[in-house]
């Protein structure tokens, strides 16, 4: 297996799918000549040219709509948002059009499209570039929502998303593009959507984390193991929708304690949904109330110390685990 960054794993997935299927094309701001704002599409335009890798004007609603129409008419667009914050301009097309199309056409028109880009905070980019907005999209039937945390997952899930016949919200994290990991080289390496992964096995407490909080949770687990001899299991759902709740509840049935760590704001978050579903199906197995770590209920501040204080951290996750374990 090759060791790749998440950025290069995504790039490899795009490249392989462009080669595999002539209907796949990548479209977005600066994806072609500029090689991508975060270099996820590096080299693709040079290799495949104008038809398959398309620079757009800064017109998020417009090019999201072009993607939706093109998908309805038989293509498989991969639409890049420079950040998911900008997708809010395009949310009418994603929510009212892409998500609803199959249903309101009585199953006649499918919309095989991937919307992808970085979600959540970066490094001091302040209030309009730092939102983690997966909960918003996860609320709408018709959309799948995917959030990888490793290079292998990034590749396998992106390839699965491109081959999926539904609109897929594919959320990366800017802070994680440089993280390295082993990635299978098989061109048909696919990770099916809707299957969680146990990133660390443990017996005393479960942490459900996604995207940026997965590496934080793994670090927290190591520290807790060393300091308190408490064995933490870390589960990464990888796909928010459909959600593999069984893997989560099975873990809770074993550990009897649950911490949810997420980068989004807490109110009406995916974590709130997971907490509800665990309560609904595994209430009797819980030995402590579920604890949730989210981003502070503020727009994201610029100042380094305030930004750090707003976001989940290894320390805040450790504190939550200690609380549910009554340490």
């Amino acid at each position, binding site marked *: 297996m090759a060791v790749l960054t998440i950025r290069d794993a995504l790039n490899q997935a795009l490249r392989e799918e462009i080669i595999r299927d002539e209907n796949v094309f990548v479209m977005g701001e600066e994806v072609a000549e500029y090689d991508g704002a975060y270099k996820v599409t590096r080299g693709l335009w040079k290799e495949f040219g104008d038809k398959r890798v398309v620079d757009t004007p800064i017109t998020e609603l417009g090019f999201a709509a072009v993607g939706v*129409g093109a998908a309805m008419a038989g293509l498989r667009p991969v639409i890049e948002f420079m950040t998911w914050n900008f997708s809010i301009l395009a949310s009418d097309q994603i929510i009212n059009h892409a998500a609803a199309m*199959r249903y309101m056409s009585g199953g006649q028109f499918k919309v095989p499209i991937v919307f992808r880009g970085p979600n959540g905070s970066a490094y001091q980019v302040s209030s309009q570039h730092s939102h983690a907005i997966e909960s918003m999209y996860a609320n709408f039937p018709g959309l799948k929502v995917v959030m990888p945390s490793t290079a292998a997952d990034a590749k396998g899930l992106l390839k699965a998303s491109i081959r999926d*016949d539904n609109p897929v919200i594919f959320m990366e994290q800017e802070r994680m593009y440089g993280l390295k990991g082993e990635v299978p080289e098989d061109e048909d390496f696919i990770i099916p959507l809707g299957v969680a992964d146990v990133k660390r096995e443990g017996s005393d407490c479960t942490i459900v984390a996604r995207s940026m909080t997965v590496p934080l949770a793994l670090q927290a687990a190591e520290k807790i193991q060393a300091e308190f001899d408490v064995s933490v299991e870390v589960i990464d759902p990888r796909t928010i929708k459909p959600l593999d709740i069984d893997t989560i509840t099975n873990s809770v049935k074993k550990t009897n304690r649950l911490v949810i760590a997420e980068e989004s704001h807490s109110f009406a978050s995916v974590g709130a949904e997971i907490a509800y579903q665990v309560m609904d199906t595994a209430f009797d197995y819980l030995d402590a109330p579920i604890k949730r770590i989210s981003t502070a209920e503020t727009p994201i501040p610029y100042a380094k110390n305030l930004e750090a204080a707003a976001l989940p951290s290894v320390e805040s996750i450790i504190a939550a685990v200690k609380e549910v374990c009554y340490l």
Partner: protein
Amino acid sequence: MPKAAVSHKTAGDRNGSAAKSTKPSKAKADKNGNEDFAIVELAKAEYQKRRKSQFEAIKKTDKKLLREMLYQMVLGRRFEEKCAEVYRMGKIGGFCHLYIGQEAIGVGSMMALKPSDMVITSYRDHVQAMVKGISPEAVMAELYGKEGGCVKGKGGSMHMFSAEHEFFGGHGIVGGQIGVGTGMAYAAKYKGTDQVTLCFFGEAAVNQGIFHESLNMAQLWKLPIIYICENNQYGMGTSQDRALSTRNIAKKADAFEMANEFVDGMDVMAVREATLRAIKRAREESLPTLLEVRAYRYMGHSMSDPGNYRTREEIAKYQERDPIVLFKDSLKEAKVLTEKDFESIEREAVEATARAVRFADESPYPAGDELLTDVFA
């Protein structure tokens, strides 16, 4: 795609070849100094001029097609009247936007297409769905929310679709379909098909950002699409005078160096001729066109609109230039159809509408388990 090298000369517009012969001689100006083409006071004089140009166009068009065009217009009228009737009886729920007064636009433009061409439109979609080939039965059953509806009762009045007929739907977000239609045209160009996309929207939609975003990309990337702005002069209850800083919608395309044309939407042949020019441009040169087609919405915005923002007199004046009456008179003058033909067309349309109502009445409601199907592929 390559950067656009746009130097396209705009096609006939209000001052150009297409509309020149019919330009009112004493046009009034609105408060912004724009000439209003469809000035009510000039309607009668216009009527005569129109008949002359319509007469010319009729002479060079296939007789069978002309009969079918009239039939589709009459069917559209009778069908929508029936919709109003059964809506009041509670048979149709939700919103219901009728096309009465605008038939010449849908019929004139869509009947210039090939069956493989794609169409997308707004929520005022019943008649366009039928012209593209969806049966009146399937449209009426959809309005009834029945299993036999063209989308199995899941869409209702605003969301008629048929993949088989390349009808990409009625859409409920004002202007949203302008962007989707642009994507359909993008796909046609990408795949190298000769399909043209016809994308309808009302005049109120041109104030949405998506209109401007879409036209920019369509001209930049040279997409084979025809944007048809159905200017029925009211966005819900707001007249265009209260919503548009300029009444000259066709000219907005100039901002994108896109071909554009102003068309009398009461004249089905004028709509057809303008669409044929745009189709040629799209099919042969892969270039977009914006057509502003001016008509008048006889009915309220939807069935729940009391219409107290305009007078009965205003409506009556427009009805003097009714597109169906105008077309019939021209067909008669040109000796294409006789009074007897009109009677049989009328009868066929009434019967087709009655059959549609019967089918919708008899069609069962969707099975309960349909609730959860078609969410995901």
